């Protein structure tokens, strides 16, 4: 290196780190929970991971499941040689004895997540992260409402834990929806879920958070979109808009409906967006998210990886 020039300094150590699988649970259907453990620099970096941040995981070296275990609808995709890392948010982060454990809730939907299912205890994977901006918790809020659509459960479970542990004065209620009962990414038997708010989802109940479940087809809980269920609940409960914040993660059409509800009621709302990403570190410009420019009808593209994935929903332009 030249002595005349000052080097461009690194801002943070983001890896790639080696993580070791400490546990891997098949929840049911195609839902899994992968437990990764970091030591050394990786443990330090991920100990500071915020709810809503994500990591890029290298899965190209993981093995495919045996042919008979590959679901028929994924058989064609399964043979594809994957190239890019895949982004995942965290459903839990914990640190003990200089090791950091990061749990990831995922669903096998393509060639990379299919490979991910074969990771076993003791296997190691290469991880870059933590990346992006997580959820922020404004000081003046007294109520937090978590609204989950399908696989959006991950980062909101992490946030639920953080809110309960570090913000005891904030009252939290969770709403979780999916198309059908089978697509709810939760562990407990979901047959007897009532249409009332209660401790029906163990994942939230363990943080003393009550929840309400909705399915589009009514196979359990409220029949209809989780956004409709949430709207109805808002109508029945007198909450102070100013003291409340909504956190949401799920499919984009759902987030668009959440944005509308939040705007109509004047409630602050942060949503976690999803985009196809190549790098996850602000270089490739793939993960553009259309945003409003204040005082202008023009829009700009921000990057989901660097400016997000969490955005204040008021700044987003939803295409749907």
């Amino acid at each position, binding site marked *: *290196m*030249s002595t*005349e*020039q*000052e*080097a*461009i*300094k*690194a*801002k*943070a*150590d*983001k890896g*790639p780190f080696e993580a070791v699988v400490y546990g891997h649970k098949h929840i049911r259907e195609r839902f899994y929970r992968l437990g990764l453990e970091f030591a050394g620099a990786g443990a330090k970096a991920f100990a500071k991971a915020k709810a809503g941040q994500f990591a890029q995981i*290298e899965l*190209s070296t993981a093995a495919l499941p045996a042919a008979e275990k590959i679901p028929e609808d994924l058989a064609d995709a399964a043979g*594809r*040689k*994957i*190239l*890019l*890392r895949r982004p995942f948010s965290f459903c839990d982060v914990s640190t003990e004895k200089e090791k950091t454990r990061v749990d990831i809730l995922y669903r096998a939907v393509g060639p990379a997540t299919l490979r991910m299912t074969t990771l076993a205890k003791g296997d190691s994977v290469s991880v*870059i992260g933590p990346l992006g901006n997580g959820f922020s918790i404004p000081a003046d809020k007294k109520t937090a409402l978590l609204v989950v659509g399908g696989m959006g459960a991950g980062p909101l479970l992490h946030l639920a834990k953080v809110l309960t542990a570090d913000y005891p004065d904030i009252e939290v209620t969770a709403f979780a929806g999916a198309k059908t009962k089978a697509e709810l990414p939760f562990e407990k038997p979901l047959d007897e879920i009532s249409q009332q708010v209660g401790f029906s989802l163990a994942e939230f109940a363990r943080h003393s958070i009550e929840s309400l479940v909705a399915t589009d087809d009514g196979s359990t809980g409220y029949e209809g979109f989780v956004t409709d269920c949430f709207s109805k609940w808002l109508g029945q409960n007198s909450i102070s808009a100013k003291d409340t914040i909504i956190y949401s993660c799920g499919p984009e059409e759902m987030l668009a409906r959440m944005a509308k509800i939040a705007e109509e009621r004047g409630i602050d709302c942060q949503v976690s967006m999803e*985009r*196809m*990403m*190549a*790098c996850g*570190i*602000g*270089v*490739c*410009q*793939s*993960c*553009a*998210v*259309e945003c409003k420019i204040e005082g202008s009808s023009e*829009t*700009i*593209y921000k990057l989901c990886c660097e400016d997000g994935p969490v955005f204040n929903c008021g700044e987003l332009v939803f295409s749907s």
Partner: protein
Amino acid sequence: MEEQIDISVDFAGLKLANPVFVASGTCGYADELADFMDINSLGGFITKSITVKPRKGNPTPRIVETDSGMLNAIGLANIGLDSFVQEKLPIISKLAVPVFVNVAGETIDDYVAVVQRLAGEGRIAGFELNISCPNVAKSREGRLTAGGLSFGTEPAQAAEITSAVKKAAGEKVLMVKLSPCVTDISVIARAAVEAGADALSMVNTFTAMVVDTEKRKPALANRTGGLSGPAIKPIAVYLVNKVYNEVAKERGIPILGLGGIRTASDAIEFIIAGASAVAVGTASFIEPGCAVKIVEGIKKYCAGHNITNIKELIGCLG
């Protein structure tokens, strides 16, 4: 042994400590990759494309993964010349390695404007002329100027733009980045070199399409994108060798080889085929420090093959 190996190369009058660049569009403006590697340990750096005005880029999806590759249709999203000068040039000026600024536009005037503004900047070693971006299409006066792609596919236009930019570039090195989407790449290479190109970089991505069979629509919002990654490497190696033999060698014009390089042996293939230097592109997305590892790997290859000077390898294909 490895200490005695000389892997420096001469590249159009520039002395590079090693032959490894990071490719335009895969390394931003240098600060993004600083968390992952020491860019000063590379041979050189190439910025993301700069256009006169800022560009928003294309709607999403902008990328889709393919077998051993990916398509991208970013649409030359960039901060524009003014912001580049104010915000990024000071960062790039801290680099100790030669820096090339990748220049794009829709008209010759666009390209010339960017190069004229930057030609006086001492810390810029040269320009990489992007006449081969497949992802921006705009009809102007009845003529399709595809983000420069027509400059890269018609020899007369390639010559015209190279010549105009060369004048604006002054003493700076002018490298022209070639599109592989042509009938005979040597025709375009020759046109660019005869019009004043000091170096060639090749190849840019291959125009390609992925169809979503559920929606029966293209997977990308832009419909088509540029294919990159290991999938294109053998074609890129072939094209480098072709241009080396038919155009570059006799004229002493160096080639920057790129297309799917992710290991040192990939890089060595390009060098043996005729490239004086190589650029790592898509692989940096997966392994941001990949280019530095390739520098080390090249040294190891030389040590293992009794090569004391990498120049022996350039174009040595038997």
